[in-house]
């Protein structure tokens, strides 16, 4: 079980996981060299780690990809405790190396991470892992228990005592959460689509609306797109507000540019191998698919930038007129580049979701927009 899952999620001989850690270290070093430090309380650190990691745990366990991997497993008899332990270990390693490592990179770059804080980080991550898994496992039969886990996770951050007591409290919470997790059975983690769920739709009346409607349905159905977008907007607002307080002129523009580091959206076609192949096999894929795809992305980015600017303004940031003008320009660039790259240079031969998430191609758009934002900040 451990080998099978780790090969899929962490790559052959942990190659994917190691690559992700290396990228995170590289990012951390790059950002650290900027020499900017943001004060961050332990409570905010714990809350960030728990919410970020917990959301990822639930997202990973419920993903269609995961359901596919586990389909065969559920048909076989297994040693419940051992299998659950291995499943927890692989899921934890996967989330830690592929996603949480990026959060760690930011924390190492912009805050003071002492060994004590690293321990707090790790304990908070374990709490999110155990709590997220327990919340997911209980959801089908006892959803109220799942709600309790989520509530306990958030309140743990707010009620966290100061000093060394925080370590003891988090370690105790990990033991309790881990203990209750192991009362569950593997069957509780089955994430198959609802049987017999059939959705009928009315066909779009105009051919031009076919692809926008298709993508609209796709985005609404795949919750990962919404969660990841909301999270990244939240992060961008937080980052920009802090950067502005530190006197960075381009804070608002950089915040907008940061939103374009949205992996699910920038790899929407590459992540769907069947769609990518079908588009390649059909004539007129640029006119019939990638042009409307670009239009949808333009609207999508425009909404994201609108939300960002609103939240940034409410948070006390300065939204100069030039940023209001830049928003549709950034949205158009984002739409064009994403559509162009997905059309001409789709990511093929990926094995794990992390291969998509950390493909260097993803950073082209953010780099372009960040450069422009930096120039805009000088005006």
């Amino acid at each position, binding site marked *: 079980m451990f080998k099978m899952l780790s090969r899929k999620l962490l790559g052959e001989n942990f190659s994917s996981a190691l690559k992700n850690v290396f990228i995170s270290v590289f990012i951390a070093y790059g950002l650290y060299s900027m020499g900017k430090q943001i004060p961050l309380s332990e409570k905010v650190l714990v809350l960030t780690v728990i919410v970020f990691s917990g959301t990822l745990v639930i997202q990973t366990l419920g993903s269609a990809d995961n359901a596919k991997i586990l389909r065969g497993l559920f048909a076989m008899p297994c040693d419940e405790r051992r299998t659950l332990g291995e499943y927890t270990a692989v899921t934890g390693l996967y989330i830690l190396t592929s996603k949480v490592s990026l959060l760690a990179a930011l924390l190492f770059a912009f805050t003071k991470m002492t060994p004590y804080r690293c321990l707090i980080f790790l304990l908070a991550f374990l709490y999110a892992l155990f709590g997220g898994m327990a919340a997911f496992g209980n959801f089908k039969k006892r959803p109220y228990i799942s709600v309790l886990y989520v509530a306990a996770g958030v309140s743990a951050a707010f009620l966290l005592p100061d000093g060394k007591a925080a370590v003891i409290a988090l370690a105790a919470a990990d033991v309790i959460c881990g203990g209750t997790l192991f009362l569950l059975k593997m069957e509780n983690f089955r994430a198959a689509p609802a049987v017999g769920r059939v959705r*009928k*739709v009315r*066909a779009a009346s105009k*051919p031009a609306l076919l692809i926008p409607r*298709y993508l609209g349905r796709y985005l609404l159905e795949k919750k990962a797109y919404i969660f990841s977008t909301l999270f990244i907007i939240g992060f961008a607002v937080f980052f920009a507000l802090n950067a502005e307080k530190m006197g960075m002129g381009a804070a608002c523009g950089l915040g907008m540019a940061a939103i374009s580091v949205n992996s699910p959206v920038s790899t929407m076609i590459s992540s769907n191998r069947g769609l990518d192949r079908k588009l*390649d096999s*059909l004539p007129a894929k640029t006119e019939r698919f990638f042009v409307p795809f670009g239009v949808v992305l333009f609207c999508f980015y425009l909404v994201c930038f609108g939300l960002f600017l609103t939240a940034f303004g409410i948070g006390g940031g300065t939204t100069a007129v030039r940023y209001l003008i830049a928003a549709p320009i950034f949205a158009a660039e984002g739409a064009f580049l994403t559509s162009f790259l997905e059309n001409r240079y789709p990511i093929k031969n990926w094995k794990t979701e992390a291969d998509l998430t950390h493909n260097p191609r993803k950073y082209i758009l953010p780099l372009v927009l960040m450069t422009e934002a930096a120039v805009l900040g000088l005006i």
Partner: protein
Amino acid sequence: METLLKLTELKAWYDPEKPVLKGLSLELDEHSAVGVIGLNGAGKTTLMNVLCGLHEGFSCESQSFRGERCSFTDKNFKAQRYIVFSEDESFGYFSFDEYIAYVFGCYKKKPDKAYIDGLVEKFGFGGYRSTLIKDLSLGNRRKAYLITGFALKLPLLLLDEPVNGLDFNSTEALYSLIAGYKEFGTVMFSSHILESVTLTSDKVLVLENGVIAKTYSGGDINAENIRASLEKVGVMKDV
């Protein structure tokens, strides 16, 4: 009969050291039905993928469509053919009616509604036209893609393992459609099922070890002949 598609010395690989197709030559006549049969791993799907421009690792001494040189990725060639994949998870958030409207738009063709309705009825698909493709069963999903392929009436229709997942009635409907497709163009399909090629094909190609080991046509296409011949090359284990 005039030649629709001609290939000589087609080689295709995933690993250049181990080619899957090893110098295959192929000639498809206009308005014909061609069945391709072979073991798992013989290269049937690779051949289909090369023909529809999806497989990058290949070389071909010459390739022509209606007597003119062609490229499998060229838009003009693409507009002349359609493929139904053996496994397809694309456009799951379209209903069949939306999918067919989209595909016809790609080929710049106007759907023949009466003909499509007839195909839908033949495949017993009437109740699923407005269901999202992702919510359809494997067999119904296959029907959606097959109906689209037949409705387009293109000069070349490629079907990769079209019988998989179909019920008895739909299989019968498929056989009659393959046999009747000559009216519009040429259909080339791969199959593991001997009956599917003997009942429908003008020509049967046995794919073995990366080349066409044997070709049957006209009166030679019957189960006994093919079975006897296939046993020699070891294909019967799979048929």
